[in-house]
């Protein structure tokens, strides 16, 4: 179902068309992913495997719950823009039958700065390197740039310099247009496959393979939502909180009718409010800790609207046949183990997991950057200098890929990384150094909230100080 009215968002819905899914016509609009259009049509289970039916979990290209066959090729439905006349089907027990196509073409591309990922961190890095006069190319595997800002509907805090007062999707629009203005080339549908010892990054763009040889690299690949282990967690309708945001805030598709949200951190609380705005009933927010983790203003907002927040509770299983039908939660004891006899059953068709994110740092690991496990920063992150340079000279990291924080710090670490790349390529120009110091100052300020204390502790272990 599509959202007809929304208090904040207006959905454009241009160029209506149809594609076929398993022979059935599905309505879609320009700029929609196949996954969103299918969800709007009510198609939940996209994959059948020997032990059940799977649906999308992340909606941004990490899980394989939305893997489908499109015109004879397998692809993730969330990364595929809808076009008229596509033939889409379940992959099932598929045996490939396509004969060899023409050998692909490979082209070399030499660039000053290569930015991997077009979220707030990547675009900010690209903008400041672009402003310095460098030839900057951003590679994004999705069909639209902006990363996860595009689904943020709340207004950001902070000064105008940091887009205070704007909503996330508006910030994304500004970053994208500013990047283009300063000559940054943004390649969409262009996943970076990896770094190869021959001395280039391979990027798949359309029918060609780009062999990119950059003089500096910024890795700003973002983060992945965490899954919880419990029976039935694969059922269509169990998804990350961010996946529901993608559906409702980016595409205007109602993710479900009756939802249970796991995790009362800021994301869980905000997404619960956004569900209510989209017309979804929120049956409960479940939090395993004794206290609500997020800002109390967010909690108060959803409580006023009658949503119970069950602290010291966890989800014990999800039930359903072809899709989620029931969620069973239970109270936990001091050891976080479910207490028998305390189960509550919710008739829900949507179970959102908002239990944290893990940095997507695999490209850096593959390149051989020195990595470290940091619980405070959400997982494996690269060691870096305070100027965001990793253990590989000329390779920088920014945003959630360097440790889980939020969009404002992503913008700032992106600027630091972008200026560092510029300093490397253009020399220690005073204006660049000053602007970088300013970005670092804003970054320190942004980390002064109580929620940053843990991050700051984590950073102390991963930042390797270097002499100027």
């Amino acid at each position, binding site marked *: 179902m599509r959202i007809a009215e929304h208090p904040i968002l207006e959905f454009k819905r241009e160029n209506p068309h149809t594609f076929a899914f398993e022979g059935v016509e599905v309505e879609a609009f320009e700029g929609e992913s196949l996954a969103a259009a299918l969800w709007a049509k009510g198609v939940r289970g996209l994959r059948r495997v020997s032990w059940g039916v799977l649906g999308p979990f992340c909606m941004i290209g990490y899980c394989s719950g939305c893997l489908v066959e499109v015109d*004879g*090729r*397998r692809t993730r439905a969330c990364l595929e823009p809808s076009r008229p006349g596509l033939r889409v089907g379940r992959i099932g*027990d*598929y*045996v*490939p*039958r*396509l*004969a*060899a*196509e023409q*050998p*692909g073409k490979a082209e070399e591309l030499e660039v000053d700065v290569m930015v991997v990922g077009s979220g707030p961190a990547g675009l900010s890095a690209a903008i400041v390197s672009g402003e310095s006069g460098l030839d900057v190319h951003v590679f994004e595997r999705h069909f639209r740039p902006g990363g996860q800002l595009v689904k943020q509907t709340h207004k950001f805090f902070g000064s105008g310099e940091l887009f205070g007062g704007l909503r996330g999707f508006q910030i994304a629009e500004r970053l994208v247009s500013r990047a283009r203005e300063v000559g940054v080339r943004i390649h969409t549908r262009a996943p970076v496959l*990896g*770094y*190869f*010892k*021959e001395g*280039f990054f*391979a990027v798949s763009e359309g029918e060609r393979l780009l*062999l990119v040889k950059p003089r500096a690299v910024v890795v700003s690949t973002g983060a992945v939502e965490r899954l919880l282990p419990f029976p039935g967690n694969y059922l269509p309708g169990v998804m990350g909180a961010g996946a529901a945001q993608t559906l409702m805030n980016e595409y205007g598709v109602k993710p479900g009718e009756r939802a249970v949200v796991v995790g009362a951190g800021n994301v869980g609380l905000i997404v619960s409010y956004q569900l209510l705005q989209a017309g979804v009933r929120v049956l409960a927010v479940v939090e395993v800790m004794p206290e609500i983790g997020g800002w109390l203003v967010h909690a108060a907002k959803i409580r006023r609207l009658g949503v119970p927040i069950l602290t010291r509770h966890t989800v014990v299983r999800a039930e359903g046949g072809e899709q989620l039908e029931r969620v069973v939660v239970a109270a936990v004891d001091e050891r976080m183990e479910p207490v028998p006899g305390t189960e509550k059953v919710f008739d829900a068709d949507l179970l959102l997991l908002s239990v944290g994110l893990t940095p997507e740092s695999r490209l850096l690991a*593959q390149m*051989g950057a020195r990595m470290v496990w940091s619980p405070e920063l959400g997982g494996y992150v690269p060691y870096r200098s305070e100027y965001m340079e990793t253990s590989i000279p000329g390779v920088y990291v920014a945003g959630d890929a360097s440790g889980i924080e939020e969009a404002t710090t992503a913008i700032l670490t992106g600027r630091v990384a972008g200026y560092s790349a510029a300093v490397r390529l253009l020399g220690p120009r005073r204006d660049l150094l000053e602007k970088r110091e300013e970005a670092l100052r804003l970054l320190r300020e942004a980390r002064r909230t109580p929620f940053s204390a843990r991050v700051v502790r984590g950073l102390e272990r991963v930042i390797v100080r270097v002499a100027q």
Partner: protein
Amino acid sequence: MRAEVVVVGGGITGVAVAYFLAERGFERVVVFERSYLGSGSTFKCAGGIRASFTSREHIVLMKRSIELWGELSRRLGIKYARSGYLWLASREEDLERLKRYSSIHNQFGVSTRFVEPGEVEEMAPALDTSRLVGALYDPLAGKASPFDAVHKLYLASREMGVEYRFEEVGKILVEGGAARGVASSGGITEAESVVVAAGVWSRQLLEPLGVSLPVEPEPHHAALTEEYGRLFDPLIIDLESGAYAVQTFHGHVLMGVEIPEQPSWEPGERLAFLSKVVRVWSKWLPWLPSANILRYWVGHYEVTPDHHPVLGPVGSIENLFVATGFSGHGFMMGPVVGEELASWVASGAPRTEEAAHLTLRRFEEGRLIKELAVIG
């Protein structure tokens, strides 16, 4: 606690040695692994298992290993299938080579046989046979899941009392010409015997003791496609290039081929590998260029001059044993090596004469073993 045996390395060899030691009644066996089990070479391998080699040592040991794979699979539920190996020739000269191999196999009781295109199509429905000149089938061969094998051996050995410590061993302690234990990141562990099963890294552990292992870290590359339905049952080998491909239990196609490489401790991914492996296999699997490659990784073969492992006692130091140098065959040999090393540690002697041929001494004495069929 003083251990009876310390095993250094938690790959297939280490967990198998620990399993067979425990089965023999050793009660204080400690396995050290610096990362996670299987993280060295085991989880990077294709999982193929065969006895169709061309040396007596390989054939005899692998025949026993295959018996053990069957037993372990029944007892522990390891994913293992006797799904065969199929050697594919597209040139007359490769066919001649296959005939020579086959006669050696048959001489040692491994019944490889030539199969007609019709039979090839039955066992490998996704294979294009239009360029097939001849195919040799080894029905005794098969495959196992490296993940499942290590996991189940770990669980079973732990059940029998083996202790696993996730610490890096920095040093093997030797006193009065005999191994006395190991020093790890967690401290010192004394032991009556030490078994070094640390893959190519065994060389670095033994070097400070004046023991020079003739093993080289040879980079080998492998790639994995997305999952498919049934494509081909046996592991397939293209004679012309030496490339192999196997369909895993999950349905992915895992494939490898050699590219020019120098020994290296820190190998890296090369696009040249991906283009070669897809090009080579397109001859037999013409749909391959349209497949998605999910993963690509580089690992090591720890290669000896004669492509046979180094097993058993390290002559100069008492109570010190080694199991490495498998040259690409360590996974398939895991069970028999576990059994032989357990025998060596327990009784001072291996079970078979063939294992006894494989000690480090053969390099000192210049009695290298000849093996013709090394692949991928």
